[in-house]
C-alpha cells in the first residue's frame, strides 16, 4: 500500500517534533482521508487488473520476496489484491499457537500466510477500515482452509484489548495515518509483554509539501 508519508526520523531534514505537530494539525482531514483510502484500496481489490501507480498483486509480492509457493497456495483474489510495500514475514518469526494482528489486513494475503504459521492453535486477527475488505479477507481465508477474525476499525483505535497479541504485522498502512504516534502507541498497548512488531512501510526523508499533505488523493495514494 504505497503512499506518501511524513518521516519522523531524527537526524534527517525534518525534526521529529515538527513532523508530529504537523501531522496532528491535520487531524480534521482524517474523515476525508479515510474515505479516500477506502476508495483507493477497494478499487485495488475490485479491479486488480487495473494498473496503479504502485505495483500490486503477484508481481509486487514476488518483488518483495514472498515465497512463490505461498502465492500459489493462497486464493487468487487475495494475491491479486495484494498492495503491500515489503515482506513483513521475512523477520516476523511467527510461531505455532501465537496470536497475530494484521493491521490493515486488506484482502487478507498477509493474514493467511500468518495463519499457516500459527496453525490451528493460534489466531489471526485482521483490522481494516473497510468492512467489505474484512469480508473479502475472511472469505479468502476460508477458501484457503484457514481463518481470519477480521474487525472493522481504525489503526488509531485498534479494537482489541490490552496485551492480547503476540505479534503485530502491518504492510504499507501506517504511513496513511496522520497520527502515527498514536498508531504505534496502540500497537504497544495491544501487544503482550515480550510481544513484537514486524512492519513494512513507506517513509520520507523530507517534509512533504503542504499541497500534498492537504490533498486526500495524494495522501491516500
Amino acid at each position, binding site marked *: 500500500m*504505497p503512499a*506518501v*508519508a511524513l*518521516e*519522523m*526520523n*531524527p537526524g*534527517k531534514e525534518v525534526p*521529529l517534533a515538527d513532523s*508530529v505537530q504537523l501531522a496532528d494539525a491535520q487531524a480534521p482531514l482524517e474523515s476525508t482521508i479515510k474515505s479516500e483510502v477506502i476508495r483507493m484500496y477497494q478499487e485495488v481489490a475490485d479491479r486488480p487488473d487495473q*494498473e*496503479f*501507480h*504502485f*505495483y500490486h498483486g503477484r508481481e509486487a509480492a514476488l*518483488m*518483495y520476496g514472498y515465497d512463490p509457493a505461498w502465492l500459489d497456495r493462497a486464493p487468487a483474489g487475495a494475491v491479486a489484491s495484494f498492495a503491500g*510495500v*515489503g*515482506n*513483513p514475514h*521475512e*523477520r*516476523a518469526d511467527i510461531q505455532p499457537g501465537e496470536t497475530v494482528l494484521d493491521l490493515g489486513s486488506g484482502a487478507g494475503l498477509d493474514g493467511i500466510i500468518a495463519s499457516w504459521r500459527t496453525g490451528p492453535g493460534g489466531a489471526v486477527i485482521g483490522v481494516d477500515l473497510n468492512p467489505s475488505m474484512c469480508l473479502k479477507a475472511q472469505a479468502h481465508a476460508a477458501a484457503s482452509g484457514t481463518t481470519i477474525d477480521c474487525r472493522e476499525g481504525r489503526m488509531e483505535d485498534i479494537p482489541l484489548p490490552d496485551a492480547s497479541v503476540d505479534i503485530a504485522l502491518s504492510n*504499507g498502512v*501506517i504511513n496513511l495515518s496522520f497520527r*502515527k*504516534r498514536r498508531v*504505534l*502507541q496502540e*500497537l*504497544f498497548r495491544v*501487544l*503482550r*509483554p*515480550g*510481544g*513484537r*512488531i*514486524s*512492519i*513494512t*512501510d*513507506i*517513509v*520520507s*526523508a*523530507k517534509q*512533504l509539501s503542504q499541497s500534498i499533505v492537504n490533498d486526500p488523493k495524494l495522501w491516500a495514494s
Partner: protein
Amino acid sequence: MFALLEGAGFTKVKSAVVPGFRFRKGSTQSAAESFGVKAVMMTARKP
C-alpha cells in the same frame, strides 16, 4: 518512525530498507525520489 517506536516504549528497534521497492509510474518514482521516499522494514519488541 524509528524514534516514534522508541517513544512508544518499544525496544530492540531495527530497520532496513526494502530492496527493490519502487513505484510503477516513472513520474511518481521521480517525485518520491525527490522526497527521499523509501520502503523500510522495521521490527521492535515490547519489553
